[in-house]
């Protein structure tokens, strides 16, 4: 069969639609085609075999990436969604196949990543009988999905999948899981075509924007002496990068970003004051507690950003722009809530604000930046010791990529260093596990990111610990020739935990001393070229070789074992108590 189910021409609603008899599995694939979701990350198994059987006939329209573990599939789909702005799609089988998705679902849920995961399930008549590979996927995944649904009858497939894509991709995006019993996949039914969903009566993804709030917010902003803009991933998800830029430029507002907001504003933009939070920049943290108006755009006041809440920005009036009403007043009391899509609310605000310069206020950020440079950054980027730092690796990488690469990171010290020092010129360039902090995210997410943005260079920066959590995905890279540059920053420790043990647990290094295999040989076993270096003199060339290499490449850089990431807001402290050393 040469795919595309050509049955139903959409005719006038009064006349009955023509139908064709197809299987539930075919309906699934037809839905994916209709949603233009033609890249799937998955792994087959017993309960999803009918869908894989149907997929066999769709391989010239749908690209299926066979991963090595379902966790790899979902992280890859996350990377795909984050680099492309589209909804990522995952296939997995029932039981362990589905439970292996849970970490990725939790990660996508907290990081608002649009995903549609399709899991196979045992036959409907076996539900609740403890059948082979039966788990209660719906209930297991309820807290980590925006929506989930079990299909037991094929006739439900078209409209449920339409709902799934609509829910995943609109409003505050998130993961959706659809569990389809095997009988529904096999069942033939009369199919009248796929209709996209654009309305669910109980779901309002697009809030109605209240003019009065915009006006009130503009009034507060116009009266501000020390306004400060903090932004998050909402700007990227809302495709409002230009709107944000216009807003801060008109008012000359200093702006700082959360980890997930990184790359929404070019690094070199003069109003980009850097990163917020625990390992963020000095000025943005200290001055959060000095600004008079805090304008939060598409961010959720995570505890890693706010530090101690009862000492967070208490002096400031807070304006919170968010699409999710549950975020407003959740952690920080708002003075003026601006509920809506920031793609629309930002321009409305920009129109009402007066141009300003705020020079003295902006200079305060520059002064703090200088102090931070002198105490922290200078040494991190231009160390005098013979041992390399993570920061200088990122700096050299910046020089070679010119800030045009997509940087995917794992979780830990290297992640914070990469976020602090990597340079970005365009949006959707920083892909990392922010809210969940999932070690093992980096490698599979980089694979997905490459499929989502095939024309861009993708560099996966990963620690020696996190790499060993999902290194089986080297097999995926090998099989599909995925051009991912893997940069392992090896400090021979679980570095972030070690840093905390050093600072807060009397240097009691409890189980953070991790040994690694020979990563280059390991890569070689997967036919991936690689190199390992420990001398600064080799750094630039080694990075250049990696970037120039045709196809995937693994470069291990040995860095200082006991280097720490600073500045740091210790847990339980206010952002103003940020420590430089």
């Amino acid at each position, binding site marked *: 069969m040469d795919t595309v189910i050509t049955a139903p021409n959409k005719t006038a609603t009064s006349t009955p639609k023509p139908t064709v008899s197809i299987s539930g599995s075919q309906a699934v694939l037809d839905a994916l085609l209709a949603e233009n979701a033609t890249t799937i990350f998955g792994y087959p198994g017993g309960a999803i075999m009918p869908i894989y059987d149907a997929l066999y006939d769709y391989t010239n329209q749908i690209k299926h990436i066979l991963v090595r573990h379902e966790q790899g599939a979902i992280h890859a789909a996350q990377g795909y969604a984050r680099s492309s702005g589209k909804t990522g799609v995952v296939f997995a089988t029932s039981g362990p196949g589905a439970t292996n998705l849970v970490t990725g679902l939790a990660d996508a849920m907290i990081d608002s990543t649009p995903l549609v995961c399709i899991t196979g399930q045992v036959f409907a008549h076996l539900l609740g009988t403890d059948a082979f590979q039966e788990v209660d996927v719906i209930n297991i995944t309820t807290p980590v999905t*925006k929506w989930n649904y079990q299909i037991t009858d094929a006739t439900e497939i078209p409209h449920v999948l339409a709902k799934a894509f609509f829910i995943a991709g609109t409003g505050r995006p998130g993961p959706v899981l659809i569990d389809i019993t095997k009988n529904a996949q096999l069942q033939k039914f009369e199919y009248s075509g796929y209709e996209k969903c654009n*309305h669910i*009566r109980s779901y309002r993804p697009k809030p109605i924007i209240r003019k009065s*709030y915009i006006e009130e917010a503009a009034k507060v902003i116009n009266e501000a002496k020390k306004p400060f803009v903090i932004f998050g991933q909402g700007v990227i998800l809302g495709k409002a990068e230009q709107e944000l830029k216009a807003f801060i430029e008109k008012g000359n507002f200093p702006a700082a970003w959360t980890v997930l907001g990184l790359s929404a504003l070019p690094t070199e933009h003069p109003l980009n004051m850097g990163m917020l939070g625990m390992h963020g920049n000095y000025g943005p943290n200290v001055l959060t507690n000095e600004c008079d108006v805090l304008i939060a755009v598409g961010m959720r006041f995570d505890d890693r950003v706010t530090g101690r809440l009862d000492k967070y920005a208490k002096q400031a009036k807070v304006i919170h722009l968010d699409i999710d009403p549950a975020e407003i007043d959740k952690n920080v009391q708002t003075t003026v809530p601006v509920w809506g899509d920031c793609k629309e609310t930002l321009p409305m605000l920009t129109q009402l604000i007066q141009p300003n310069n705020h020079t003295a206020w902006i200079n305060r950020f520059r002064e703090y930046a200088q102090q931070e440079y002198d105490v922290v950054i200078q040494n991190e980027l231009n160390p005098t010791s013979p041992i390399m730092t993570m920061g200088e690796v990122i700096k050299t990488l910046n020089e070679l990529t010119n800030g045009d690469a997509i940087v995917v990171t794992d979780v830990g010290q290297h992640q914070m260093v990469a976020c602090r020092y990597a340079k970005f010129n365009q949006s959707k360039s920083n892909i990392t596990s922010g809210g969940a902090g999932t070690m093992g995210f980096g490698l599979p997410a980089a694979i997905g990111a490459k499929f989502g943005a095939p024309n861009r260079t993708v560099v996966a920066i990963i620690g020696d610990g996190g790499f060993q959590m999902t290194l089986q995905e080297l097999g995926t890279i090998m099989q599909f020739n995925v051009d991912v540059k893997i940069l392992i920053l090896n400090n021979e420790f679980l570095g972030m935990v070690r840093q905390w043990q050093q600072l807060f647990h009397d240097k009691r290094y409890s189980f953070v001393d991790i040994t690694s295999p020979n990563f280059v040989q390991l890569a070689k076993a997967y036919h991936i070229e690689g190199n390992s270096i420990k001398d600064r003199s080799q750094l630039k060339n080694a990075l250049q070789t990696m970037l120039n290499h045709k196809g995937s490449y693994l470069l291990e850089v040995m860095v200082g074992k006991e280097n720490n990431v600073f500045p740091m807001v210790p847990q339980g402290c206010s952002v103003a108590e940020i420590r430089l050393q």
Partner: protein
Amino acid sequence: MKKEYTITVYTENQIGLLNRIAIIFSRRKINIESLNTSPSESEGIHRFTILINETEEVVRKLCRQIEKQVEVLKAYYNTEDEIVWQELAMYKVSTDAIAEKVKVERLLREYGARAVVIRKDYTVFETSGHREETDRLIKVLEPHGLIEFVRSARVAIIKSSNGFHEKLKQFEQLEPGEEVIENEYLSKQAEVFSM
């Protein structure tokens, strides 16, 4: 200050939604005092009545989390004076004990109770009312051997509500009117931005 709040949730009638709503409470270690699901005044729309003891701030955040669920149309919370509420209670006692020691007639009158079943061996009474009222009857019956007792969840009518029919019509439209999506942010007392 913690108080008794009655949360009313209008939802689609969907398998699994009870779990989705329940875990919003359990995740935050908040005990549900009582929970009732039933049809509502609007066809096809389900109504949850949930009773919890919490501060208003917590209750407001919970309602927003509940409303965030895809299949939830609307969540309201009310204090006791804003609702009319009832609970149903049933009592099973030995018929002999009742006949001998307690004046059935008096019970029926004083507590508004009525006998649902009278058998040779036992009698079942039911009454409805506020918690204190149904509790009082337990006290009266206990000395005579209360064999079984059960009380239903709270059901509540919101005094100021105009029902859900009009809202539902709006929700069914692609672009509902402003009035239907109430502004959750405006404080109830004054039309100012005080949260």
